[in-house]
């Protein structure tokens, strides 16, 4: 029993070097590409003197190591400095924006589950049947189409032609937010479900062929009960892992989708900040997103362990 807990703690301890690596990458990435925040701020008013003044006031004239140290020190205390572009504390900007992104990811996850669990099982049970073939074709198509195109087509059909959904934006109030997020979440859920449906299908097929399923059938347990209680529970484990791993792509997808649907989330904040070389914002958003992904991966492992206790320890209890 103790070893299981220890293993989890050691996973948590492993996060430290990972997080350190993330801060280093998010710090260096923008600084290594050409482009000067002072240029962004000054535009055509750029003169070397004015630019030097701006770099000084932003602390960009200090050695890289010093700048990095300040960033780390700030990040530890939850202070990410002030945005060059918005002239507001980065922490405030993040708080303003995190809600929309979390809601989008959450809604997407719900849609994914709602789409892929029934379809995946159905496709496995009726192997080679209509649903199996249709999900294969449709979802592969959905996966191949870029999110900005799917998004625009959804807006065109459901927003403009049918008038069922708002045409982008975020609305006011939680209910309105959810209404505004349906199409964007669907845009993200379609390609994402592809992976999940296929993976759930194959793991379900494996489980369906297992001896205990045959035993359950012999015992006369109804097929629906077998599917839900015995098959799904065993088949979902690998899918949860696939979900966790692909969550990084989902977070990447929000960046595009938030722009198409003009949702004030972290993704659209990041895009704007990269093009304006708003270092503090890029660093902070990259860090937050990375931490989110890392934590979800950890959570996936834990959940997977709960679903299948053999995997959580790796040592015999």
């Amino acid at each position, binding site marked *: 029993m103790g070893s299981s807990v220890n293993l989890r703690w050691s996973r948590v301890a492993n996060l430290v070097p990972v997080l350190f690596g993330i801060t280093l990458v998010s710090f260096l990435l923008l600084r290594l590409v050409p482009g000067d925040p002072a240029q962004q701020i*000054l*535009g055509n*008013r750029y003169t070397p003197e*004015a630019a030097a003044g701006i770099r000084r006031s932003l602390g960009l004239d200090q050695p890289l190591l010093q700048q990095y140290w300040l960033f780390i020190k700030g990040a530890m205390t939850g202070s990410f400095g002030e945005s060059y572009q918005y002239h507001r504390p980065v922490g405030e900007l993040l708080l303003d924006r995190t809600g929309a992104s979390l809601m989008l990811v959450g809604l997407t996850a719900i849609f994914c589950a709602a789409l892929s669990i029934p379809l995946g099982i159905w496709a496995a049970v009726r192997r080679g049947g209509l649903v199996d073939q249709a999900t294969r074709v449709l979802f592969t198509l959905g996966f191949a189409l870029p999110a900005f195109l799917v998004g*625009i087509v959804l807006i065109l059909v459901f927003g403009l032609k049918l008038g069922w959904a708002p045409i*982008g934006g975020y609305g006011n109030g939680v209910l309105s937010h959810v209404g505004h997020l349906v199409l964007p979440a669907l845009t993200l859920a379609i390609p994402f479900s592809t992976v999940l449906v296929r993976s759930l299908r194959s793991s379900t097929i494996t489980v369906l062929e297992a001896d205990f399923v045959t035993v359950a059938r012999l015992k006369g347990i109804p097929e629906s009960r077998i599917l839900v209680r015995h098959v799904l529970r065993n088949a979902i484990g690998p899918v949860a892992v696939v979900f966790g791993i692909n969550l990084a792509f989902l977070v990447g997808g929000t960046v595009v989708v938030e722009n*198409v649907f003009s949702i*004030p989330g972290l993704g659209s904040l990041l*895009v*704007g900040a990269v093009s304006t070389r708003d270092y503090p914002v890029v660093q902070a958003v990259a860090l937050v997103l990375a931490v989110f992904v890392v934590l979800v991966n950890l959570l996936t492992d834990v959940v997977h362990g709960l679903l299948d206790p053999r995997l959580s320890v790796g040592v015999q209890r």
Partner: protein
Amino acid sequence: MTPSIASPARRTHRTRATAALGGLLTLALTLSACGGDTKENADAAPGDTSSVDTLKLANAVAVDTLDPIQASANESIWLDQNIYARLVQTDPTGTKIVPDLADKWEISEDQLTYTFHLRPGVKFADGTPVTAQDAKWSIERARSGEDSAWGFLITPVTDITATDDQTLTIKLERPHAPLLADLAMYAYAVLPQKAVEADKDFFSKTPYGAGPFKVTSLSPQSNLVLTRNDNYWGPKPKIKTVEVSIVTDDNTRLLQLQGGQVDVIENPAGNVLKQIEANPKLRVDLFDSTRVDFVSLPLKTKPLDNLKVRQAIKAALDLGRMNTLAYQGNAKVATTFFPYQMLFWDESAPEPKQDLAKAKQLLAEAGYPDGFTIPLIAVSADAAGQAQAVVIKDDLAKIGITVDIQSFELSTAYDKQRPGTNGMGMRYWTNDIIDPDEVATFGADGDGGAHAFNSYWKDESVTALVNQARSETDTTKRAEMYAQIQAAIADQAPFIPLAYAPFRYASGTWVKGFKVSPLGNYNDSLLTLTVEEH
């Protein structure tokens, strides 16, 4: 208005495929264009009252800050003008200074003392009186505040004094002709000193000044609500509310307009203008701007240090064709490096004509009869700039010069252009003030930090002229000097002005009277604009 941050990405160009489709289509397009004109003429005048009291505007670029001394995104600056009043303002044509908070002012004989008299009883949106002390504090803040980007404009100012509540005196060390134009700029807005000092987050909450609108809701990146300021000294806007949303995606913005979710959109993509015009409920609005597109020929890149090479390049370009390809003919061919909607633009300057024989001859005289190869740095997301670069490549190939177009994302492109050693570069300028001093200093003063738009061209006599013109208050003499400066740049070609591009908007025909001034402001039109049921 910081042009580089503005929105080159939005200025997409229309392909010329349609032009080749022959008579019928051309006729159809012409008819649709005419239709557009009719819509414009018949419907644009504002009504007496607005049956819908809210205008919904979708901008392409986020509000960076509503602190006028820090704003660098054009979209923020244009909003600032609605919120904060200044001592004086520019008229809707962008060529004249008219009263704002100060209803009259005197300039001393020696041009060194300006005395402004505030309108009696003028108030901020919260009802507190606007005093000369507020004006003094605000101008000082913009002039020497740590965060201000705009102090350089009024360096000759030595002293600002609030003589009494109504009177403000500004003293100069030397005559400074652009002073009124500078004070009309958003950065020199008069702010409520006490309120700003009392709250360090003043500008990120619900800022107000003495302009026609005040902010009632602000989440800077997604949504901004302006509400009519009933304490405004001037005509009361007919609409009560302006809702500004930020929709960065070009397609989504247009779809929102088509669906009637918004009333006006900024920067519709260039390749959908005809489609918008074809919709009877929508309208494309093109407004004269102060934008000047140019290609720089920095002298630090050989052989651009050779005058005849630069002149040859200039003679080889077909700016008319460039306008067709980059702006569907909606821009105007540039004749000087001054914006054409500006004081002292030389209207007698000839339109440059392509002359390949002359270009070849100049190139031969320069010692390059067989041409040479040179890079051209362009901004990848700037569709119009990309089209211009292609025309430059094509035209220069005709005189034996091989152009290697290198496209970079905006920030990187400007980084590459700045040292002047990496070849030619696609650039553009927009004005912040109606006075030409700013563009003259940045474009023609070789001693200035901008190195004549980073061309590293320098001419002592032109630098002297730029400085003299700044201090010259006799309008005729000043016009003369600026004509000489424009002619010198045209002849010396450290950069070649290409096009005067318009501001692009699209709106529903239910919006009556939306207009944008050459500086990009729409505050005047929001005073009279009306919105109908739709």
